[in-house]
């Protein structure tokens, strides 16, 4: 579904790349998470796949076609929601369909359907400033789902939310993605979030490269049992931590740590 090959990105005249020869394949229906320390290029990769950033080199192929610009077969959920404050929940969700020229009746009906899916059917006419952070991000999720994309991109979507809301939305996303067999590329800082949601976790390090890949074999649906109590969880978490710690130590050695 998504093939990323040799993706490279230099910002401006920077000598160090934000991404260097980044490769990744995501199969149809697969949930893949990019994880790594700040500045490792995971958001850069996601923005290039979305088409919001131009790559300096390499290629992104979505569903067999080269992808260099935003298109209706990809949808993104932003960390800061990026909802339009002058639109209601309903018309925010209908936004992508409106851009595609879908008739008003049809797009509003579909928007209603997706607000229902994220549990906001009683907040249809509310404006973003009348909704909580969690509710806003559910609107953001519904906006992305409403255009029925082949590829769903999520850029630290729960980073701005409190822990409880976060867990609630994680299980909601897990269920929706499983039900709809969505192909997802997800970016996060949180190891637990990555393990809970993903079929596969890609660990990135600076500058912008893959330093490890892990398949998560915990059986789904994961909200039905205490997945953190399983030995698989403990093992994969330990390995990812070790990798991230080593990476952080290396970065600190290069830049000079404050703890020496």
């Amino acid at each position, binding site marked *: 579904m998504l093939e990323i090959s040799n993706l490279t990105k230099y910002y401006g005249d920077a000598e160090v790349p934000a991404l260097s020869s980044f490769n990744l394949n995501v199969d149809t229906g697969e949930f893949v998470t990019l994880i790594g320390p700040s500045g490792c290029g995971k958001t850069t990769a996601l923005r290039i796949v979305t088409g919001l950033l131009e790559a300096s080199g390499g290629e992104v192929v979505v569903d067999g076609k080269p992808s260099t610009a935003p298109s*209706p077969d990809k949808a993104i959920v932003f960390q800061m929601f990026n909802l339009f404050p*002058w639109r209601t929940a309903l018309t925010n969700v209908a*936004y992508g369909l409106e851009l595609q020229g879908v008739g008003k009746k049809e797009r509003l009906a579909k928007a209603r359907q997706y607000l229902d899916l994220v549990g906001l059917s009683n907040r249809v006419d509310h404006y973003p400033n*009348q909704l909580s952070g969690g509710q806003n991000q559910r609107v953001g999720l519904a906006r992305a789902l409403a255009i029925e994309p082949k590829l769903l991109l999520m850029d630290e979507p729960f980073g701005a939310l409190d822990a409880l809301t976060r867990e609630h939305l994680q299980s909601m996303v897990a269920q929706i993605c499983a039900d709809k067999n969505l192909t997802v590329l997800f970016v996060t800082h949180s190891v637990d979030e990555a393990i809970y949601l993903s079929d596969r976790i890609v660990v990135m390090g600076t500058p912008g490269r893959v330093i490890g890949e892990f398949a998560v074999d915990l059986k789904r649906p994961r909200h039905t049992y205490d997945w953190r109590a399983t030995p698989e969880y403990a093992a994969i978490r330990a390995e990812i931590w070790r990798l991230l710690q080593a990476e952080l130590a290396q970065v600190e050695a290069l830049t000079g740590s404050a703890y020496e």
Partner: protein
Amino acid sequence: MSEIATGASLPKTADGTGLAHRLRHNPWVLRIASVALLLIAWQLFGNRYSTSFPTDVARAFPHSFVHDVVPALGDTLKGFFAGFAASIVIGVPIGLLMARSRLVELALEPYVNALYATPRLALIPVLILWLGIDFQMRFAVVLVSGVFPIILNTYLGAKEVDRNLLDAGKAYAAGELQILRTIVIPASLPFIFAGFRLGLARSFIGIIVAEIETSVLGIGNLINQDAKTLRFDGMWVAIITLGVLSIIFSTFLKRTEAWTTRPWERKGMAPWPFRR
């Protein structure tokens, strides 16, 4: 807490803080008292030869308003509304274009900045010379007074649109026109309205000054003639009418702005434009 504490629910105390508190929560009491005090002072200390009296102005009001002010106002407002409408129709698109196109920005920036800074009243004599003293001149004076604040504010507002919102539009594959319509314009509306308010005030000043200058038609001329012939009753009637008109215009703009830029406040409110 200030929402709950109303004058009526407060204990009736005689001390100053209680009174001050109550007055703050019934704004009309002090507003009316303040105006009444001014009128009384005017009545007491005014004189027939330079200020007239409130009672004389009130007595002159009906006749003067119907026979002098309304016809003069007709001339003034015709030029004013036509010129201000043209300022909006020309100013908003130019401001948007400057913000979205680097080429247009570079080409127009010098004029807009220079003309915004120049006192537009300085152009009145030459506009009179070119266009005479009738409708065209008024129209032009209002246009040059109103269009630059509108261009500049629209331009600044459209430049400052939240990048996150633009990202959202781009990510959902919006074209340039769609980005303009669905993001840039709604996001810059508060700035555009600020431009309208500024432009409105400047236009109003411009047209009155032009009428005083030309001494032929309009309410500016009426005020000028009345003052020159020491008819202070009529002059005050015209000036008060102008003041009331300005309040009506700016209130209308304020409410239109609230209605369009804060849609979440609409619910449960009196229908536009009667809401406050």
